[in-house]
């Protein structure tokens, strides 16, 4: 009987763990709607918060309009058929693009994006690219400029601050499609330490991958 009890306890523990693993779905963040329209504020960091189970992994976060209130969410809820203004606070340094044609922005309004509010650009040099925010199902892909690798006050782990840390602010707009769940990903081989830079965070929803939930 002791054997049976021990077996049952072990099985229950394993079952519980598997259940928790299966139910592990990252949280979602909604876009902000104001008089200026609908806006989505995101940030990328070279490494997730120290309390994170993978605190060395590069990751996206959802933030507020002033770059505060960090939430580790990668499902972004957007209204359908709406022009969305996206702002991405870039705290990560460049890793370079694998497929160069992605150095050109596609699918944004005018096919352009702005860095730190400067004149709209169509493309950037591979060497300056830190990430690419891409939604292949929508034909959207925007190269994100990284902070200089030699910046003194570079941010190490989330949360970072736009005032205290080196940051590049990339903005662009795009029109959401009809209702549905669309996946987004990064195309830059930025998962350092993994072969092809595409392991770990690049293949885990909640870090460099997630969903756009258009409602």
């Amino acid at each position, binding site marked *: 009987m002791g054997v049976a009890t021990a077996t049952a306890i072990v099985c229950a523990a394993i079952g519980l763990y598997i259940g928790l693993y299966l139910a592990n779905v990252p949280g979602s963040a909604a876009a902000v709607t104001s008089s200026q329209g609908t806006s989505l504020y995101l940030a990328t960091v070279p490494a997730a918060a120290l309390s994170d189970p993978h605190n060395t992994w590069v990751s996206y976060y959802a933030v507020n309009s002033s770059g505060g209130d960090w939430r580790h969410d990668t499902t972004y809820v957007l209204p359908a058929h709406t022009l969305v203004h996206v702002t991405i606070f870039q705290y990560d340094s460049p890793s370079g693009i694998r*497929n160069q044609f992605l150095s*050109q922005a596609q699918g944004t309004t005018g*096919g352009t994006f702005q860095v730190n509010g400067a004149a709209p650009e169509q493309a950037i040099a591979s060497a300056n690219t830190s990430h690419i925010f891409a939604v*292949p199902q929508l*034909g959207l892909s925007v190269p994100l400029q990284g902070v200089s690798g030699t910046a003194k006050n570079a941010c190490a782990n989330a949360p970072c601050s736009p005032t205290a840390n080196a940051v590049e602010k990339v903005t662009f707009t795009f029109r959401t499609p009809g209702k549905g769940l669309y996946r987004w*990903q990064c*195309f830059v081989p930025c998962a350092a330490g993994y072969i092809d*830079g595409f392991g770990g965070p690049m293949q885990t929803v909640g870090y460099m991958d997630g969903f756009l939930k258009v409602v």
Partner: protein
Amino acid sequence: MAQTRHFRNVVMLWLIVTVPFEALMIFVLAPGMPPGNGSVQAAGQVTDNTVLFGLATPVTTAVLVFLGYCLYAFRERDHSSALEGPAIRGDAGVQFWWLLTTTTLVLFLAAYGSIRLLQDGSGGGQGPNPIAVPAMAKGDAPLQVQVVAQQWQFDYRYPKYGFETPDLMLPANTMVEFHVTSLDVIHSFWAYQLGVKADANPGVDNIAYVHTLGPLTINVRCAELCGLWHGYMFDTGHVVPQAEFATWAQQQQTLLAPGSKRLPKYSRTYFPSPVRRSG
């Protein structure tokens, strides 16, 4: 004698079942056989599938009719019965004919499949040195389209026009030569309606030929597990009239100019820095 009667019954039943099934296969199902007649190669596969179904049907019905008949006719219904069957341990004649029939079938299938394959490659990826180059591809230079697979998107590079795009567009009634390669892991380029499937391997140029017919919408999917977004690695391509294709290509040249000028020199394979675990 009893077993002669049984055997006659089985043969009759087999004929009764097979003839309508065979007719159903060849006349009803075959025209709609996948992947449809979207290209010369796809149409070839339809023919091939029809032949296979045509041959498989009588074999299947033979076994099933035999099985069903045995279970019906030879079933012991008296559970308390201790009766035994006849102690037959084999029959050289039956074995000989069985072996002859199955061998003939197998050799025919292998020969038929090989002939069809060698004719035009059947749309499959043939690697860097194709053995089955369609006759049409030898004359006029076919349109080359490089399929660059990466995690997790297919891009199409048109070396003739110098741009790369995520949209697959092909001219109608044209011989197309796909060069499928990958920048990271193994993918598989599956253009369903064209009847094309070719794995994308890093460092390998996998060539597949297809001769397009009329305008068509193509569902492209990745058919080899390539990681997280494998299930989302799909897009839609189009076969359009040749004039329309020319216009589209010109537009893309202008539109994609900023990205195109950064593209590496056209090559059959690419070896981007692998970024190893060693960093």
